[in-house]
């Protein structure tokens, strides 16, 4: 029926081995934006981090953080 589809998602991160994955999601988001700041907006290397945080974080949180970043009120070490 199909070409074998590969299911991929954010891998289990050994830095966050417990049930609480809140920091995992937050860290991936920050890593993505730091990567963008370091490598430039057009770089494709940061896309990996983008996939990770999109898989893990609820859409509402992402929207809120994006707004906060635009307003300059994001509470994280970007």
């Amino acid at each position, binding site marked *: 029926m199909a070409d074998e*589809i590969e*299911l991929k998602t954010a891998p289990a991160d050994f830095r966050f081995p417990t049930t*609480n994955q809140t920091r995992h999601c937050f860290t991936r988001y920050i890593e993505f934006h730091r990567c963008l700041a370091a490598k430039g907006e057009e770089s494709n290397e940061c896309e990996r981090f983008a996939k990770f945080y999109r898989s893990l974080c*609820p*859409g509402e949180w992402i929207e809120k953080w994006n707004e906060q970043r635009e307003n300059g009120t994001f509470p994280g070490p970007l």
Partner: protein
Amino acid sequence: MIVREWLFLTIAACDAAEPWQLGFQDAATPMMQGIIDLHHDIFFFLILILVFVLRILVRALWHFHYQKNPIPQRIVHGTTIEILRTIFPSIIPMFIAIPSFALLYSMDEVVVDPAITIKAIGHQWYRTYEYSDYNSSDEQSLTFDSYTIPEDDLELGQSRLLEVDNRVVVPAKTHLRIIVTSADVLHSWAVPSSGVKCDAVPGRLNQISISVQREGVYYGQCSEICGTNHAFTRAPGNIGRLLSPLWLSRTTRGATHPRSKLLQRAAGAVGSQGARQ
């Protein structure tokens, strides 16, 4: 491995609460099977102790009769029996602890990277599910709400207060990561067949790893009081339709929302891929 052995005696697996149900629902994941096995282990010791204690109790009552036993004994000490009745009951919990800890730690162990992440977000009084693994930008998640079908809208054969309009569709035999959170108050996402119960805390992402071993429709309910309609919120909404081949084959054919067509069809209430199983 787990469930097929016993299912030849049944016509359909018990994946939803049944009236007058006494035992567990049928296991759909290795975790649930482990829980059931632990329960059997503990129950064995439980019955041993129960029978022993009842026997002693009945025997004492029976013989403590003024005609049968006019002069009762007055024993107050007995070193040997005191030692035995201390040591023996402390050995029994050791037998119980071994399988219990084994299960407990193996439940937390995530050995394999999950293949798919599903977010289950609790609201008052419905669920939202997000599938975001294939987003190309910050918008575009496949998201849908899952409301319990009210009694008046039920079709023949559907379970009251268990059916939802949009079910979560999930591939079978795949390691899933389910991220449970809430948008307002505490909820809890529970699917007894899969041995899953996870609190949905606002501001926190709780992760559960499961791997459902057989296809089917699984039902669950909200397990943390969350307001007026707590009793009417279906926790997973049904984890419906674990369709491994269908999922893989039809999910990424072109289109901006490649998964939406299959999922919306498969997740629809009844009759989407044939009759409700």
